[in-house]
């Protein structure tokens, strides 16, 4: 169930703010029907999480449509107007460009980019943050982006690189399909990072936008000859630290309002 400031939330009122069939409604319903009690310090805190989760899902859908190709680190590629490809195959932000422009470019000129699923998931998080935070604040927070799986993540997003147990699975969560018997010649198939899009659908770069069975099937086709174990979806999730990001959000939006026009 959902509590706001230690009191049961008015679910009807909350839902009324999200008409239609949006993922915010789906999230509210999962939280409310859960046997776990989710206690938010304020309604604004809950709304912030709903907004960020919505933007994570939107960014995942946008990356799916971006025509970015799947490449291992060996063959990774990027638009060098915005990014520098490092010897290990990651992309470092060019010092002479705005982080917001560089992140947007991935989604505009996706065909110029190629990487694997973990790095693609980080791209999704940065895009979502860009949609939620004022651009100036985004550029200050992420002045030094390095895109390479879960390596050197900006401190503000550190937690998305970690997997944790969760009471419920929510749209906007990062999940992981693991492939224990992967063919060692193609370790890029050792698993697939995905974003939960809701309704049982996931997006994972390189495989696409499908139900869980399709991911399992794709991974199973890349196993060792003597494979005994099927790929499967782990229960754990990767989530940003919504509490800390909300505080940051409050700080930057309050400051922005206080600045004289």
């Amino acid at each position, binding site marked *: 169930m959902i509590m706001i400031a230690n009191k049961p939330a008015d679910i009807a009122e909350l839902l009324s703010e999200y008409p239609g069939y949006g993922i915010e409604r789906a999230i509210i319903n999962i939280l409310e029907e859960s046997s776990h009690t989710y206690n938010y310090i304020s309604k604004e805190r809950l709304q912030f999480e709903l907004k960020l989760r919505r933007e994570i899902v939107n960014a995942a859908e946008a990356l799916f449509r971006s025509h970015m190709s799947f490449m291992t680190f*060996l063959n990774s590629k990027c638009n060098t107007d915005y990014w520098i490809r490092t010897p290990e195959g990651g992309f470092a932000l060019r010092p002479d460009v705005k982080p917001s422009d560089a992140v947007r470019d991935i989604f505009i000129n996706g065909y110029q980019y190629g990487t694997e699923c973990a790095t693609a998931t980080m791209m999704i998080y940065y895009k979502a943050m860009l949609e939620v935070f004022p651009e100036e604040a985004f550029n200050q927070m992420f002045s030094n982006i390095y895109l390479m799986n879960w390596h050197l993540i900006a401190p503000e997003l550190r937690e998305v690189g*970690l997997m944790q147990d969760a009471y419920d699975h929510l749209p906007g969560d990062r999940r992981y399909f693991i492939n224990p018997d992967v063919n060692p010649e193609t370790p890029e198939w050792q698993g697939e990072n995905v974003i939960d899009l809701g309704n049982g659908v996931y997006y994972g770069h390189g495989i696409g936008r499908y139900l869980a069975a399709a991911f399992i099937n794709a991974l199973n086709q890349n196993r060792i000859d003597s494979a005994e174990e099927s790929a499967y979806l782990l229960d754990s999730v990767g989530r940003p630290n919504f509490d800390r990001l909300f505080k940051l959000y409050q700080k930057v939006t309050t400051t922005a309002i206080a600045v004289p026009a």
Partner: protein
Amino acid sequence: MNVNNLSYLDNLRLNQGADRLKNEFADLAAKHRAVAIRHINNDKLLFPTLYILMPVITAYDLYDQMIPRNNIAIRICANKSRNFALAFRLGRLRPRGSENNRAAYKWMFDTGLHWEGEPDIREGFDAAIDAASALLICVHKDTSILPAVCDLVFRRYNKELLIHDLVWGFFQSYDPVSLLLIAKYLLSDDVKDIELACRLLHLSIPETGVINNGQPLYERYLAWFNENNPYLHFTGEHFQQTSEPNPLHLDHEAKYLAKRLAPKDGHPLDPVTPDETACLIRFRKASHEDQELLSSYSAKLHRRNKGLWQEWIGGDVSEQVETAMAEMQVIL
């Protein structure tokens, strides 16, 4: 390296460089195809030389006359560089039989391990070495290469090159010895080595100052490992999955029962008896702190005096906690 022991093509590469090697081999392939094939199939040839010559081999289409070792190695390289058509063709040429494969992977690894080519070809070559080592470890269960793979991981990290696939393959050995190989780097004089050893062993990175001396860290890790080794199993976590993979899980229930586990999947090596199941049911009712105390005391007592341990493990959990709290310091 004993120059007299080198093949003609390796000598050419080492003494006159990669460009001269390619030019001479191309000339040979054009004018004396059989001689070119004899040289490329030489027993003593080193993998870096074959790797550099791949474009020439393709240009003169020498694949059908090459020995399995070369075709297997080039097939792996072709897969890594996404030349799937060539990989498919070479896959069809590849003779059946795992010994040919094993020998080719071993040759790639042993003769390519220390080569550091030019940056433009280095990445592809490293990826082929990663694949060869992973195939040796996972498919052929060759753990003899673990020390060399461990050293390569640290060398690459120092040069800020990709280590993720190499580390993944290394841990696929599910051999606890692999952890001790990494732990030795805690004793390194190089801060970067200590930093990476901490990351790979999932230890907290020490504060500045302490990191210059990894000796205490090493001793603590070794003590922890020796105490818990029979009850550890590999988690399979890796860098594609999480930013802080933890390679090992300590099973407190197994430690409490002094029951050895298979390092790969964490299953008990001997079946759990009804008496042990009853013990576990009681153990699970204890608080998390008490469970840690009980498992730690149990393992120590089991090692010291099996008779006393048998008596203790059959008792009530609250009595066990009392004894453990009273005697934990004494039994250390």
